[in-house]
């Protein structure tokens, strides 16, 4: 059957073009791949090749014609044995319009709901049963125990990174793990973050559960393409066929006196990415319980630690298998006057400020988010409904901070409950300086948190 040749779209944005030149004439035989015409698009002059073989029966659009719409018939191709008389019966392959999907989008964010403020359902169950024996442990020990327990439980879990094995960990997090699990499962990598992060993601695709340690998250910027493009997006891009069950972990944020390139807080960066989960714990029990949950999670988890917290001791429940669920905040201190929300090392400022404020008769409720994606916004809103005031605390930069996001959620979901604007206490909008006095000022301080609370409580 004679077929119509249609004006092709030769770029993603082309809607019409100029038929600059015909390179065949009526009666010519063409084979697939032969160049038939030159077409000027919005970007360039392109050659247009024949797809089917046949004889050029008729040229419908003369060369030099401008503004030829995509899908306009430009010529008719005849099969062997056909004549130009068959052209009448030529029917182009209909470019059938996409069939409309019948299901409507789920109305998760229907605007009508914006002004209603129902009290959120919040899980306030305790992290461990009453009467559980507690032991004092450093964050460092708790983190190692969490990883080691999961490696005993599951042969497919392994840890890789710079200096994790023979050196026993640049910050001694993996101390003793090489001895227990051997070089097959505790793997020293060369200093090559982009490469080993990619190998880690590939190993996860291949059925393992890697823990990829970055000596610090500053160096993960070299690997961020694999974290986001390869790990976070593959489940979606594959229509759910495969994903990256793995943990990227390491210290994040400022340590002490290490300057601008080694002192960045990436919480807000990773929090933005669908497909990732992001934990940023404060206490030792959360480091352990969240690490175990992270390793078992079938999705890529960013586990943001803090070097200054590694040596701090906290109560850790003495349980065989202690886990903490993602998306469940912990209220460290109850109060009626103001809500202070933080996570990671920001909690030290929040708690210190709350203690000093209590001496002045201001009772702050202090909430530790523990994971910032998923984020327990319900716990924040429930608290704000009680206190009507909110201050957020983090070490990261102010523009596009975690606190900014919390503020927008609270404004949309608890606007009527706010008696003062939300204040975000953050690190200063500067690269981290080296000088001791400047560094101290670049970070968020307890004094700033106290000042913010006084502002929102009008004291």
């Amino acid at each position, binding site marked *: 059957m004679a077929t119509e040749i249609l004006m*092709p779209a*030769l770029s*993603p944005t*082309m809607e019409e073009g100029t038929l600059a030149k015909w390179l065949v004439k009526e009666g010519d035989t063409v084979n697939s*791949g032969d160049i038939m015409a030159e077409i000027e698009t919005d*970007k*360039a*002059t*392109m*050659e247009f*090749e024949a*797809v089917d073989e046949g004889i050029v029966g008729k040229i419908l659009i003369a060369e030099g014609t401008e503004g030829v719409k*995509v*899908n306009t018939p430009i010529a008719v191709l005849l099969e062997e044995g056909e004549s130009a008389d068959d052209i009448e019966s030529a029917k182009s*392959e209909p*470019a059938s319009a*996409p069939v*409309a*999907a*019948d*299901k*409507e*989008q*789920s109305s998760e964010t229907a605007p009508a709901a914006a002004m209603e403020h129902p009290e959120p359902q919040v899980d306030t169950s305790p992290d461990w049963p009453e009467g559980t024996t507690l032991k004092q442990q450093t964050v460092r020990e708790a983190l190692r125990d969490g990883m080691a327990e999961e490696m005993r439980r599951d042969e497919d879990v392994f840890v890789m990174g710079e200096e994790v094995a023979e050196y026993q960990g640049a910050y001694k997090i993996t101390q003793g793990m090489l001895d227990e699990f051997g070089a*097959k499962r505790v793997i020293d990598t*060369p200093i*090559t973050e*982009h*490469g*080993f*992060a*990619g*190998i880690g*993601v*590939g*190993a*996860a*695709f*291949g*059925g*393992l559960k890697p823990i990829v340690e970055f000596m610090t998250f500053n160096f993960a910027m070299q690997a961020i*393409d*694999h974290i986001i*493009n*390869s790990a976070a997006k*593959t*489940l*979606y*891009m*594959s*229509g*759910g*066929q*495969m*994903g990256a*069950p793995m943990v990227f972990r390491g210290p994040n944020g400022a340590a002490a006196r290490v300057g601008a390139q080694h002192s960045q807080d990436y919480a807000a960066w990773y929090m933005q990415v669908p*497909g990732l*989960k992001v934990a940023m714990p404060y206490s030792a029990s959360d480091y352990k319980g969240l690490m175990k949950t992270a390793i078992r999670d*079938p*999705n890529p988890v960013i586990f943001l630690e803090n070097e200054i917290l590694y040596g701090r001791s906290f109560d850790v429940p003495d349980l065989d298998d202690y886990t903490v669920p993602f998306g469940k905040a912990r209220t460290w201190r109850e109060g009626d006057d103001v809500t202070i929300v933080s996570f990671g090392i920001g909690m030290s400022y929040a708690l210190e400020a709350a203690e000093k404020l209590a001496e002045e008769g201001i009772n702050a409720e202090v909430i530790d988010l523990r994971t910032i994606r998923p984020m327990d916004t319900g716990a924040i809103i429930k608290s704000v409904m009680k206190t009507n005031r909110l201050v957020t605390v983090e070490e990261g930069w102010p523009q596009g901070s975690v606190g900014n996001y919390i503020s927008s959620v609270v404004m949309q979901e608890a606007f009527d409950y706010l008696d003062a604007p939300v204040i975000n206490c953050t690190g200063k909008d500067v690269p981290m300086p080296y000088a001791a006095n400047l560094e101290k000022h670049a970070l968020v301080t307890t004094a700033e948190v106290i000042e913010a609370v006084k502002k929102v409580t009008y004291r």
Partner: protein
Amino acid sequence: MLNYLARSNARTGEMSMATKKSTKKPNVSADELKAYYRDMLLIRRFEEKAGQLYGMGLIGGFCHLYIGQEAVVVGLEAAAEDGDKRITSYRDHGHMLACGMDPNGVMAELTGREGGYSKGKGGSMHMFSKEKHFYGGHGIVAAQVPLGAGLAFADKYKENGRVTFTYFGDGAANQGQVYETFNMAALWKLPCIFVIENNQYAMGTSQQRSTSSAEIWERGKAFGIPGEAVDGMDVLAVKAAGETAVAHCRAGKGPYILEIKTYRYRGHSMSDPAKYRTREEVQKMRDERDPIEAVRNMLLQGKHASEEDLKGIDKEIKKIVNDSADFAKDSPEPALDELWTDIYATEIPQEA
């Protein structure tokens, strides 16, 4: 000095496709030869159809066709065993068809429909098949190289004897992560075949203008990785080289590099103005080195197949491709609910 001369000739002279002639002709049956003919023809006709659907506006965005390079994947798949893995870049339609993925599912992904391999959410550059051990379909140049080594890492960890074919182009060969990966793959003896599909042009920049080495595979020597250059327009030469590489990896000797010299007839993507090479250069390749014509001639001259037999194959392929186009047009667009699915898994999907 000799080395230097050879190198400078290769860099300044005409593109030389005659790389390493295989010394012994591989023993191949008429049926195998016919299967390679069929598989290569399927890729070519499929890609021509994809180009046509793109022209009709049914395929959007980027669309990178594999026409001219068919012998690479068909030759290497002939050297693979069940359970071996493969991963590649965004020029991935040929790899998917060659490893046995369903043309309907591939074409429907190109048109962004529910029946596509990724339910329409991946597109031309992002498709996967757990069943066929095809791990994508990656749009960031060279990202698939460490990912492929990671797949090989998993196989070595599990001691299952599998190998991974990690495909990338001559353009990707200038990315730093390739050499980070070579280093670790060699250190850890990963069963990974690095397949450099050298089609001579990194988008529109020729190898001479972008790459300091005339022979890219020789870069592996710096890491102690053996390799060879292969004539990528000869499916039997590719198969033979693939068998060498697979045997090396399966024997636990670590990675192997195949630099397969091939040629892409079409543009880098659909919107390539093709100003960086002459029409004559492309035509010469098509006329003199076409991998499908070569097998066709072999079949006819050796009397392994008649014109009628080959017409039968052509007809069969035409039907498969037309059916895939019909399927891809008729399959509905994904339901809007799909926007919100597959962001987080509740169980590890590749184990489910």
